[in-house]
């Protein structure tokens, strides 16, 4: 075996320039794949972490049927049992009970549709980052009563100042109309155009009183220590909560659009890289076949003096593997360096381009990843395709007859 490796190693350096160019091509494909996959997977994880972290939670507790009919009638009581369950699970980092309501909010003659996030400041501050996104005034605190915090666009549209009152009009749990006056104490910029246009944060207790929905919540968003805990905790909670008419959903079930957008982007990225690798495989095919046909004379003589076809084929195969592996190792290293640099210095988009991202609720920031999966998958797929591209020349060597080889010109 060692002999064949040595044999193959010497063979590939007989034409240095050709081998180097092929190695460069493999290296190029590898490092590019590592960088692009890093950007994709890194950004997905980042989007999920920030979006799920603030909004849906890694998992979410709802009443059965709420997903299709998100009305007040499908809210549930936030009982001590549920609280104990959440507090006692060690994978739960934080959680936030929330009650949502669509309302009309007006000030003077201006009125706009609003979406109230009824949140308990004690839970919310530990859970989300909303309180860090205040641009004016302050966020709600545990002593807040009759106070609201508005999305900055809504705040602008209503032409308000901090301390002004707004009138909120909604529909209570019994279907009757309810209205009330609230004092605006803060303005928040979430960076998600749709919500900045309509969000109103209100104390959970205030909202429950306003809607006559005592102790009721729409959802409980739960933050876990890591993504890979989702399945375990979901199962665990479902066993306990399902009999009570509640369901536990993952972020991907709550935010189907986000999940599909990621899948869509992921699929198109993989498709592009697959074609790139195939292009490089053509280069390998060319190098290997050239080097094989050049050596038909030599192979013919080797066969004539008793070398076995299988062994010659094995040597050629080793040559391909060596070229591919050298390219892959250097490529992974270079790609890894780039990814490391991007992790340390994330790319932040600015100006007009940033607004495109914000419109869909993504932070305009690109981060990367050094997930080992990226390197393993890249290396394996490039090695695999290289081997496939070498099949034809290797087969020709395997079928070579000594005399045909010697006479080959």
């Amino acid at each position: 075996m060692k002999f064949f490796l040595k044999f193959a190693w010497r063979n590939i350096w007989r034409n240095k320039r050709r081998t180097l160019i092929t190695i460069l091509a493999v290296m190029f494909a590898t490092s590019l794949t590592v960088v692009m996959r890093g950007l994709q997977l890194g950004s997905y994880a980042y989007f999920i972490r920030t979006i799920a972290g603030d909004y849906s939670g890694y998992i979410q507790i709802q009443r059965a049927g709420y997903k299709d009919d998100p009305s007040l009638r499908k809210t549930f009581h936030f009982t001590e049992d549920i609280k104990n369950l959440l507090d006692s699970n060690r994978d739960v980092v934080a959680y936030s009970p929330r009650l949502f309501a669509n309302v009309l909010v007006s000030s003077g003659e201006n009125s706009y549709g609003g979406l109230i996030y009824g949140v308990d400041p004690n839970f919310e501050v530990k859970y989300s980052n909303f309180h860090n996104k205040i641009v004016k005034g302050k966020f709600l605190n545990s002593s807040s009563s009759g106070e609201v915090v508005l999305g900055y666009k809504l705040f602008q549209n209503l032409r308000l100042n901090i301390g002004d009152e707004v009138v909120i009009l909604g529909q209570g749990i019994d279907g009757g109309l309810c209205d009330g006056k609230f004092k605006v104490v803060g303005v928040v910029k979430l960076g998600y155009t749709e919500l900045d246009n309509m969000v109103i944060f209100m104390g959970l207790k205030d909202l429950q009183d306003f809607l006559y929905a005592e102790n009721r919540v729409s959802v409980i968003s739960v933050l876990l220590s890591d993504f890979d805990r989702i399945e375990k905790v979901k199962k665990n909670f479902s066993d306990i909560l399902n009999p009570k008419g509640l369901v536990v959903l993952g972020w991907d079930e709550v935010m189907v659009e986000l999940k599909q957008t990621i899948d869509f982007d992921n699929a198109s990225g993989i498709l592009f890289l697959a074609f790139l690798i195939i292009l490089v495989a053509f280069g390998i095919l060319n190098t290997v076949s050239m080097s094989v046909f050049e050596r038909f004379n030599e192979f013919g003589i080797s066969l004539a003096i008793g070398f076995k076809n299988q062994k010659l084929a094995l040597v050629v195969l080793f040559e391909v593997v060596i070229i591919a592996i050298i390219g892959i190792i250097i490529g992974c290293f270079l790609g890894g360096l780039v990814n490391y640099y991007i992790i340390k210095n994330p790319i932040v988009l600015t100006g007009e381009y940033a607004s495109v991202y914000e419109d869909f609720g993504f932070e305009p920031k690109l981060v990367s990843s050094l997930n080992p999966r990226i390197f393993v998958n890249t290396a394996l797929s490039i090695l695999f395709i290289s081997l496939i591209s070498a099949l034809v020349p290797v087969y020709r060597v395997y079928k070579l007859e000594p005399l045909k080889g010697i006479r080959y010109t």
Partner: protein
Amino acid sequence: MIFKLAWRNIWRNKRRTLIVVVSIVVSVSVLLLIDTLSMGMMKQMLDNQINLHIAHIQIHKRGFNDDKTLKNYIPDSEKIEEVLRQIDEIKFYSRRVISYGLINSAFNSSGVIIVGVEPEREKNITIISRSIVEGKYIGEDRGIILGKKLAQKLNVEIGDKVVLMVSDLNGNVSSDVFRVIGLYESPSSEFDKVYVYIPIESAQQLLGLGDKVIEFALILKDQNFINSVKDKIARAIGNSYEVLSYDDISPLIRIGIEMYKELIWIYYLIFGIAVGFGVVNIMLMSVFERVREFGVLKAIGMKNKKIFALILLESFMIGVVGTIIGLVIGLVLYLPLSKTGVDLGIFAESLAWFGSGRIIYPVLTEFTLSLLIFTMPFISLIGAIYPAIKSIKFEPVEALKHI
């Protein structure tokens, strides 16, 4: 002569040249499909935005776009209609009343944008009338149509009653009962959740607007007229109104397309480099195989310049042949797809979120076509420079002795 020489040279080793040609063919046809599909998706997002609501041009009282309050109504719509009727490039126009409001069913409520439209005229402006999936289009008094998504949220069906609640022109809360007569489903799920349609008279009554309207929406005979018509109207109706194109109102998708155009060449470059390695490799091989030949050519008086040009030409020809075949194959795949569209149903929810619809019709633009035509021949030229330099470095006598 040099053309013939180059052409014959590249086919001396058929297998080698073919492999490189195939790699160019694959990259050209794949790039053609990827690029036209992405372009098509963005064009659809843009078109849907225009056809769903915005139209080509909107006219409001100055300031409405920044502050969508009822106070900014159009005081004399007859004067504007007079102007619009005299401009030939305008195909259709329609008057609208728009207000934020709250919609309540017996089960749930939701913030909405209420659009009061002239049912017959609006048919020519937007695709809402053609997007009805249940029931019928508005026409009768107190009928309302909602997006199917919104109806699901409100838990209402055709024939059910809903209450619209707004604050009227004087700032008082006003509400009215409407009967759901139709449900629509547009390519954009976000849109469907928010926009509801009632006849313009009902809206004026609900909002206390009398016979005033808020907005004119215009469709032109050709999109290219937008800027000239915009200026023409603005001059005719004066400074107390704002005349806005779809791009002024919602520039995001246009920015997205610009961003895409600015970045797409990177993809071409990546494929180009991958192909380029192959080109460099085979050109080097073929140069080193022919060292003796170059020696002979030089010995009989061929100039270095010509040999240099010969190598570049050979490589360029490979690039051109590959590009032509690649374009043909790409177009053969593209043409039927551009008619039938590509159904990306598995990503339906995501595409509805983007507002493109689930069936994507690829679009081939001149921009894409020129990138496709020039990338690979250009890369082939660049890739041949190093081998060409090598080819003229030999001394004739040395080269003749080369084995």
